[in-house]
């Protein structure tokens, strides 16, 4: 100990020319460097891998990694396709049919109330699936009835059925009273075709009473009856949690969370409610271990991003103008995407660009638009609204007369820029290694990024192979995000998720509503974001609720957990240790 102090003193003295403050900073850096150089022992390496590359260890995970060999396990996680997916997950995802749909199908099958109105008016086609069509037709009936109230009743509207018309008094009583099990039995005993009518006729409170014990299919009908458009958002949240908890391809899921957050979009911004399903599935997930340039272009051309950052409406100076309507004004440039592309997606705020660059980039992306975003339309380039004049972006001249290639050229420039290599590496290291990752590590990751043409798998490998990743400076120094806390708690107790929406609500309570970060920055990767009194209390309460089997939709078997000192007790899951990773 004393020897170390002496060495430190000598080091400090050798910096004689420095001022007091930098000598202090130097000393602090020395301490940091020491921590990031000091390697953790073998047993802790498995814990570190499970803490950082998964959503937390389940019982038995550590032993499984040990028997497989840590190196081999990591190699497999970096090649997720080589890992067979957990059949439990596949099964649980089965009912979430929106996940496989195109945005256009989502709009049609899970319409908002306004769209239901348009369907009635014949401005939009009804869904083709007969079941869904029926459900929506019932909604139409209800909507028309509601509209009719106060106004004169629409004589053409089919009669909405009150519950009393569908069921006998005894049947209604059975659905209203008794234990949840009895209510479930009463509902199940109804003929299938009647079940739909009953759900549609129920008041929302009564529906909710049935929800908890219903089969997945019936639950879906209940959600649908509450409002079809909600199903899309719910499925996203359900799937995020189910995957975090059950997927065997854990690193891939952690990276999905990271990259979605890096290229954040916001669920509640208009058309984005239908565009994010395809965004996560087709834009983010396939690229998390691929080339950055491809990921970037996929986001740039995604309707979800074009809508979120308004680029779909940004047009050049020669764009055709709507009729001379003074109220509408002239259409023109919108620099929202141009700025966030540079600041948040690629170079970083200190990446050396100017306001002029922002405007020039925005000009390059004019004409990158969406066909009918409210109907789930696709990306399209509109030559007529593109500004084809000459632009200069970060010192590179993009000649006049270009089309879609102007924007693609910008993506080339920024994707291969050294500032981007550093910015992306810093963010990854901050998520996976330490809140303040050492510069030496960032340098090596950035070098890999530049050498491999932005191969994200190679960058991850450099990071995971680094001594810093396995150091005391990294080990158990980070605080879990709310998503990580909730997923890891469910994993720790081997919880059986029937439906995950209440868990998603818990995560929102903890401060991280899923898909609902309004700002393009996404959530912070730093622990500091989550270290506060209200958040800690919410974590403690969640831990107790989960282990008391009080979170709806998740079953936990705590029969064997009797003492607070057990590692999966509510006290343990709410403890300071469990909040860290």
């Amino acid at each position, binding site marked *: 100990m004393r020897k170390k102090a002496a060495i430190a003193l000598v080091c400090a003295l050798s910096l004689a020319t420095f001022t007091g403050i930098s000598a202090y900073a130097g000393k602090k850096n020395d301490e940091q460097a020491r921590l990031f150089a000091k390697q953790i022992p073998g047993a802790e390496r498995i814990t570190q891998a499970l803490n950082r590359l998964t959503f937390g260890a389940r019982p038995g995970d550590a032993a499984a990694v040990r028997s497989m060999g840590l190196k081999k396990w990591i190699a497999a996680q970096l090649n997720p396709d080589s890992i067979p997916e957990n059949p439990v997950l596949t099964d649980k995802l089965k009912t979430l049919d929106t996940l496989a749909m195109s945005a256009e199908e989502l709009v049609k099958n899970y319409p908002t109330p306004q769209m239901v109105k348009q369907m009635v008016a014949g401005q939009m086609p009804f869904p083709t699936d007969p079941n869904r069509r029926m459900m929506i037709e019932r909604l139409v009936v209800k909507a028309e009835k509601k509209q009719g109230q106060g106004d004169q009743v629409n004589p053409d509207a089919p009669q909405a059925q009150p519950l009393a018309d569908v069921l006998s008094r005894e049947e209604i009583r059975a659905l209203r009273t008794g234990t949840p099990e009895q209510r479930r039995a009463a509902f199940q005993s109804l003929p299938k075709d009647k079940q739909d009518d009953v759900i549609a006729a129920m008041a929302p409170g009564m529906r909710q009473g049935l929800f908890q014990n219903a089969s997945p299919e019936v639950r879906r009908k209940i959600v649908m009856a509450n409002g079809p458009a909600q199903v899309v958002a719910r499925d996203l949240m359900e799937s995020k949690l189910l995957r975090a908890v059950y997927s065997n391809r854990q690193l891939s899921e952690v990276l999905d969370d990271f990259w979605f957050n890096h290229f954040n979009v916001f669920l509640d911004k208009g058309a984005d409610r239908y565009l994010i399903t395809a965004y996560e599935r087709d834009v983010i997930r396939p690229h998390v271990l691929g080339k950055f340039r491809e990921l970037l272009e996929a986001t740039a051309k995604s309707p979800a991003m074009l809508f979120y950052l308004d680029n779909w*409406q940004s047009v050049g100076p020669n764009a055709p103008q709507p009729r001379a309507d003074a109220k509408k004004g002239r259409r023109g440039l919108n620099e929202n995407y141009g700025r966030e592309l540079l600041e948040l997606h690629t170079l970083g705020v200190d990446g050396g660009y100017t306001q002029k660059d922002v405007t020039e980039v925005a000009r390059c992306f004019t004409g990158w638009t969406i066909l009918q975003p409210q109907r789930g339309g696709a990306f399209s380039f509109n030559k007529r609204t593109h500004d084809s004049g000459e632009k200069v972006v970060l010192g590179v001249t993009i000649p006049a007369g270009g089309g879609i290639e102007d924007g693609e050229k910008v993506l080339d420039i920024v994707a291969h820029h050294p500032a981007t290599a550093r910015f992306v590496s810093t963010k990854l290291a901050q998520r996976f290694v330490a809140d303040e990752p050492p510069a030496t590590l960032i340098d090596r990751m950035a070098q890999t990024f530049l050498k491999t043409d932005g191969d994200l798998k190679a960058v991850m490998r450099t990071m995971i192979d680094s001594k810093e990743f396995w150091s005391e400076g990294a080990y158990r120094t980070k605080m879990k995000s709310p998503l990580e806390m909730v997923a890891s708690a469910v994993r720790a107790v081997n919880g059986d998720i029937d439906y995950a929406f209440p868990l998603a609500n818990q995560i929102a309570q903890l401060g*991280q509503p899923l898909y609902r970060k309004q*700002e393009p920055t996404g959530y912070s990767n730093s622990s500091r974001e989550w270290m506060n009194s209200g958040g800690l209390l919410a974590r403690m309460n969640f831990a107790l609720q989960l282990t008391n089997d009080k979170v709806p939709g998740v079953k936990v078997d705590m029969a064997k957990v009797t003492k607070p000192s057990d590692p999966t007790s509510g006290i343990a899951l709410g403890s300071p240790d469990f909040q860290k990773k």
Partner: protein
Amino acid sequence: MIQSRRIFLRNSALAMVGMGTAPLWLQRALYANTGSAGRKKILIAIFQRGAADGLNIVVPHGEKAYYNLRPTIAIPRPDSGDAQNSTIDLDGFFGLHPSLAPLKPLFDQQHLAIVDAVGSPDPTRSHFDAQDYMESGTPGLKATRDGWMNRALPRELGEVSPVRAVSLGATMSRSMTGLNPAIALQSIAGFQVKDAEAAKQFENMYMGSKDPRMQAAGRETFAAVSMLQSIQKQAYTPAGGAEYPRSNFGNSLKQIAQLIKSNVGMEMAFADIGGWDHHVNEMGQHASEGLLATRLADYAQALRAFWQDMGDRMQDVAVVTMSEFGRTAHENGTRGTDHGHANCMFVMGGEVKGGRVYGQWPGLERDQLYENRDLALTTDFRDVLGELVAKHLGNPQVNGVFPGYSPKFVGLT
């Protein structure tokens, strides 16, 4: 003698508060008074995240260039004939957006002051950086770890209330982060561990944590929990017929009012209201419709309700609002505005010299604009905050709150 006796009482009573055994009246009495100067002053900061469009909030209707720059989204002049959708005149040159009508009486009674062409001198147009700079109180300096509000807490001898500084919301605001204890709170009612036995065990674990951050957070948390226990069970009814909007922001202000009126020793509160980044369709068909109008209605109704609810207690309170930067003076090509520079701030309180628009107006002609596109800045936001810290809170260390800057007081208080 009296002084030391009071301190003795405070400290021993605080020990009881810490153990959760103090009777309600004692807890309240503790923080209700501090010497002959009467009750402690309270500062509330509101952050409008997303860069609110100051030029459509405090409308320079006397400026011709304003109407030229914004052919489709300018707020019509006060005399346009359609009162619902016109600027509410304040002084013949400036006026309020029509959705701010609930605040007009406050301005008329001289309890609401406006500072215009104010903001951060840093040129950044990044939301993140600009918010960070404004909340740290150090424009251009990224290394500042704590927030201006945390530094602005007056130094106290002896014990202070564990809920002295409260940041509303699920996460701690940057403004309030720092060495002084501060808590993040979503709701007063929810601020507890719902199982008393478990609460004790958690408390021991957090207090015993080897991680100093966890330990500190745990200590702050459990002290605040015991402090708030007494007011958790009472239903809160706002006074003066105040009706808070059912929004996050309305709810935040309602909780702040409850905390103030329960005399638990809160001296500072922070709340934010998001959704001001209006690049597209900022205004609907009419000035009182659309994205900005909706945000402003929530903002104004909540502030107005808070004012009514507080009644006489407003004498102790100052509320200040800010946003990271303003927006382009000209409208963009999608009936919105892009990121700009200077903005406006509202200051409201019983002792505020209101009824005036402060600040020097730089004009909106092209050569008067900042970088030929944005409202130029004539007042540093730290001048406004610094004055409130020094004169309202009575903290003499204002230079430590804004290191490297000497605030020039605007004359608001």
